[in-house]
């Protein structure tokens, strides 16, 4: 009996040969073409406005948004900004003379 390896190789080659010998003709039918044109027409109607408003614009601003976020992060890290402290200071110092703290029941 032949070795297992030879048998596996023979089956493998036969499967490759079967794949390559397969008939795969295709012709674009007018029905399929009409379906494609109808779908892209619909996507133009449904998605056109959305894409025009948000599709490209969102990505166009993405880089700028990331840049602003990084700048703000650096600013926050280097200026010693403490968010909780800043909020408390805003409420308690109340520069506009409106006693915001009282509205929260803090005297």
């Amino acid at each position, binding site marked *: *009996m*032949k070795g*297992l390896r030879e*048998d*596996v190789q*023979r*089956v*493998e*080659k*036969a*499967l*490759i*040969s*079967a*794949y*390559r*010998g*397969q008939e*795969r*003709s*295709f*012709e*674009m*039918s007018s029905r*399929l*073409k009409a*379906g*494609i*044109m109808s*779908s*892209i*027409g619909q*996507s*133009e109607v449904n998605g056109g406005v959305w894409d025009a408003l948000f599709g*490209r614009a969102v990505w166009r601003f993405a880089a700028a948004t990331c840049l602003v976020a990084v700048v703000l992060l650096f600013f926050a890290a280097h200026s010693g900004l403490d968010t909780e402290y800043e909020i408390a200071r805003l409420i308690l110092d109340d520069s506009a003379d409106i006693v915001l703290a009282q509205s929260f029941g803090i005297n």
Partner: protein
Amino acid sequence: MNDKSVQEPSDIDIVQRVNDGDTEAFGLLVDRYGDAVGRIVARHVPSESVEEVTHDVFVSIYRSLPTFGARSPFGRWISSIAVRGCHDFWRKHYRKREVSLSSLTEDHQGWLDVLLADDSREVFERQAAQREAREVLEYALDRLSADDRMIVTLVHLDGLSVRETADLLGWSSVRVKVRAHRSRQRMKKMIMELVEERRKTSDEGTS
């Protein structure tokens, strides 16, 4: 002057027209590349799904036209969208597959027996041309993941280079190389199991 060059706009001209809002011009691209795209799809998906996938590929091409940068030839760019469309088909197909996988019948075992019983070229060619050969191949491909299936088909069955496959799938060459090696090992393991099973059966028959 060449009349043909006047009548037939280039791919780039048509892309420009479509991007400028002339949706009907897309029909020229469908006429020009419809058969080629369909043939790519027919190589990778079952015959009953070829039209559906070809349709989806052309809709993807239409949606991606604004991103076509003319860095690669238009035909190659379209081919890569077609291959990725087939890859998406298998991913969706595998995700929603609930029924158990097909198993090999006695016909397939018989096909294997005849193929392995005789070393001649004639038997090899006759067996490779039979329907059972394609069904055994389908049986093996069905047991791979969608990624492995595409890699096996492109690299091992279509015989494309690692670089061509990487371009078509949008993967790195290293990823294709690693996947190609692993998926081939899986295929081999599957074939080995089939051959061993067949040997066991024939041993039991003779003893």
